[in-house]
């Protein structure tokens, strides 16, 4: 971490490192004493292995430009020199059974020359990173580990700039290695800061203090119980305007019992409680039971009941849900799954939602000439009786994942578009405009991720939004879905899988005062998968004929991952989608192409090259083009390593053009 104002702290750490070195030297000197024959050898009280480490010199240069279509161009150039020394050792105090210690530290100096459009400055600062841990009584049944680390890394935003990420952790872990009651307690404090290379102001900062308690209790061979407790206080700020201080507590107790029959019927029970404060305060209590009876090897029934209470803002709701289902297997070909259920939600404004639902699914597969046929038939019935609702309800933690920059539609009646926000798995909050846009569409919202933003692709995200008031209504839905897929496994068409799916929902609405409209739809999907060796291809066409929000989409995906030789790996991928919203007469085309090559030229020399291109053509908000190229080369000879990295990212939108170039060259010598 570069911290110009904390040089004394860095000095203290340097002194600490010197003390470790001295202690290690003393211990070694002690072991060099002349031996006295016949005398019992005394092991040293503190013993460390020989100190290893490395010395590195690094030069980083970055250039960032932003050129608005109207207005002045801004640019930032930065040149950074770093000289750092890393020391590593490990050892023990008294005996290895009492305390094992691992020490690693990186200390150095940093010179930063910054040249911006309106100012030029240079700063000197220190570098200090560490990774230390001490484990006490590691061979006992109650080991205790204390650890602390601070690490710095560079994070590349797709089609955007490179950020510096600094994570500091302090923690303790206590384990009880009991055969009947294994327990783990962990308390830690973690601070994560991300900032642009050419900025001392953090782009994002989160502080987390947490305590975890996990205990398992093996009551008998057939019964066990789990206890989990989590307490966390979080404080986060970002340059996009997020400022949240929150506390969350959660506790859960689950019990599982496997019946003494040979088939393995089971009963799972659980109670949980959670309390969250912050921008989305909520308190939840939940009790659930699930009974699974296996009558034969081919037939089982299951019974579920749950009740939960949620308090958020000024509202509260109690939800009860019961489901009865069965599963039957006919030979190896036909699986039949049926479920019938009921759900009732009582809100604090005296409104109520009662829901009856039934589903019947047939999954059929059969070996046929040249391959396998996989068919499904699903029938569903759903009746929802809603009394007039005055209050706003909340939806929290709805899973969401972006696999490309294509828009995602969230279908939900009365959703409040301005209430939609996204969190990632670490709890970091992203507001609309901070890497994504939210557009209201009939019966839902459209969420469009933006290249160059902080939202990661292919990682789990969670949606939070409000559902507004609605008049009394009764919604009845009948659904039918049929799909067929032919997997060709032999012959010259091996790997080809054509498929088609037809879905139908017929919806009737009684009441609703024209605010709740039926959304009957027909959807047709047809496409083909092709897999041969390292190559995969998918082409798909989807047509949705909806009363409220009809659209059609064409998707193509291709991927090639190939290990050409022992030392060469090639990966290429392309994802294209073209979505046309019929009623709105809007069309969004997105194309994302990635390529990578990793090659070991010789025993000492390796290089990695990657490139990416994104193109988004939206006939309402304009065109976006992004390019990204990166090259890494590493040459290693014995203890010496020379490394270099070049990265270029450009993003061109209708509003502005942003470009970022980054060069890093360094040498590291281990000793």
């Amino acid at each position, binding site marked *: 971490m570069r911290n110009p104002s904390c040089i004394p702290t860095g000095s203290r750490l340097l002194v600490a490192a010197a003390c470790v070195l001295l202690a290690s030297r003393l211990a070694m000197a002690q072991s060099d004493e002349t031996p006295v024959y016949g005398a019992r050898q005394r092991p040293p009280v503190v013993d460390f292995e020989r100190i290893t480490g490395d010395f590195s010199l690094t030069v980083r240069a970055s250039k960032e430009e932003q050129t608005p279509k109207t207005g002045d161009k801004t640019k930032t150039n930065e040149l950074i020199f770093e000289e750092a020394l890393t020391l590593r050792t490990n050892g023990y105090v008294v005996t290895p059974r009492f305390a094992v210690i691992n020490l690693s530290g990186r200390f150095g100096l940093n010179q930063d020359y910054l040249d911006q459009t309106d100012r030029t400055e240079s700063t000197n600062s220190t570098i200090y990173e560490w990774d230390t841990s001490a484990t006490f009584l590691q061979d006992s049944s109650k080991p205790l580990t204390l650890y602390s680390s601070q690490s710095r890394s560079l994070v590349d935003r797709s089609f955007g700039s490179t950020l510096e990420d600094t994570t500091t952790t302090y923690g303790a872990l206590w384990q009880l290695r009991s055969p009947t009651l294994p327990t783990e307690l962990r308390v830690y404090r973690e601070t994560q800061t991300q900032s642009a290379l050419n900025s001392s102001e953090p782009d994002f900062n989160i502080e987390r203090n947490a305590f975890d308690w996990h205990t398992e209790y093996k009551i008998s061979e057939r019964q066990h119980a789990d206890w989990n407790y989590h307490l966390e206080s979080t404080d986060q700020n970002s340059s996009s305007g997020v400022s949240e201080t929150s506390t969350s507590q959660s506790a859960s107790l689950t019990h599982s019992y496997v019946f003494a029959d040979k088939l393995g019927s089971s009963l799972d029970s659980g109670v949980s409680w959670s309390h969250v404060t912050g921008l989305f305060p909520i308190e939840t209590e939940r009790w659930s039971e699930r009974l699974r009876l296996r009558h034969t090897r081919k037939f089982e029934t299951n019974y579920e009941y749950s009740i939960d209470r949620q308090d958020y803002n000024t509202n509260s709701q109690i939800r009860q849900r019961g489901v009865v289902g069965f599963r039957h*297997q006919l030979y190896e070909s036909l699986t039949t799954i049926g479920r019938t259920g009921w759900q009732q939600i009582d809100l604090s404004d005296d409104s109520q939602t009662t829901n009856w639902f039934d589903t019947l699914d047939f999954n059929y597969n059969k070996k046929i000439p040249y391959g396998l046929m996989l068919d499904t038939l699903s029938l569903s019935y759903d009746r929802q009786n809603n009394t007039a609702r005055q209050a706003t309800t909340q939806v929290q933690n709805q899973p969401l994942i972006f696999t490309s920059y294509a828009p995602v539609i969230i279908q939900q009646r009365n959703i409040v578009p301005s209430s939609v926000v996204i969190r990632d798995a670490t709890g970091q909050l992203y507001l609309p405009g901070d890497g994504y846009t939210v557009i209201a569409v009939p019966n839902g919202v459209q969420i469009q991720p933006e290249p160059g933003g902080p939202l990661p692709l292919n990682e789990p995200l969670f949606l939070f939004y409000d559902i507004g008031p609605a008049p009394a209504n009764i919604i009845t839905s009948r659904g039918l879905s049929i799909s067929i897929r032919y997997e060709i496994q032999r012959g010259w068409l091996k790997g080809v899988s054509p498929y088609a799916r037809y879905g139908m929902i017929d919806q009737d609405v009684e009441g609703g005062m024209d605010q709740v409209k039926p959304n009957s739809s027909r959807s047709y999907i047809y496409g083909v998968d092709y897999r041969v060796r390292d190559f995969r291809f998918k082409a798909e066409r989807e047509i949705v004929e909806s009363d409220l929000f009809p659209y059609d989409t064409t998707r193509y995906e291709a991927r090639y991952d190939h290990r050409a030789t022992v030392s060469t790996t090639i990966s290429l991928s392309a994802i294209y989608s073209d979505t046309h919203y019929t009623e709105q007469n809007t069309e969004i085309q997105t194309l994302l192409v990635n390529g990578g090559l990793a090659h070991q030229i010789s025993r000492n020399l390796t290089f990695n090259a990657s490139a990416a291109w994104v193109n988004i053509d939206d006939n309402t908000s304009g065109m976006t083009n992004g390019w990204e190229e990166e090259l890494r080369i590493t040459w290693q000879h014995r203890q010496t390593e020379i490394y270099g990295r070049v990265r270029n990212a450009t993003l061109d939108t209708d509003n502005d053009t942003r470009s970022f170039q980054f060069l890093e060259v360094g040498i590291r010598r281990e000793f």
Partner: protein
Amino acid sequence: MADRCSSRWTLLRRIIVPLLAIVMIASWFGCTAQKRYVVLSFFFDGVPDPSKPAPGSRGTIGVNGQVVLASHVHKPYADGNCQACHTGGTDSVFRASSGLSIESDVCLKCHQKVLTQYPVMHGPVTSVECLRCHTPHESNSAHLLSSASPRVCVQCHTPELLSTKPPEHMVKTADCLSCHSGHGGLKHKLLLDRTTTRPATQPAPSSKIAMANPQREKP
């Protein structure tokens, strides 16, 4: 739209109901068990063949209709203990529901030790890729290999990339396991000691190797 819906429901009833009726009639009122098997097998996989041994017992039907016993059978499979490896219930339930084979991790439930059994380990063993080489039910090759050596080895070790120094590498039908161990060993390249003979995946104890190859102990 409601009219279209009702016409589709009618069409559905006209197709599916007679189809189901044909299946039920054919299966329940077939003349003999063998004929019933033929009819049901047309619609379903996994219908028990009355001429085949009961599930769980060893053997498959050969081309001449005779029961051919596989020479090596995994014990849980022979015992009909499908739940030892499959989570979906019986083997048939699992396969029908997911259409995918099991993950190799399930092997570690019983074979955990093999991961660190030898000082030099074969890559797929340490990365728990058991099913690259082994078949979980039955096989005619020793150690339940999915196919005999060298076929099982050349899946990854392309013959063209092998060194040409040992003349055996030039012979396409040479048995790799006569010189190399499958899981791991004490030597570089998983080489077996040529003076000892033992199963491919069971290297001799270290003491035996030391005795058979005394120069190895010299500095």
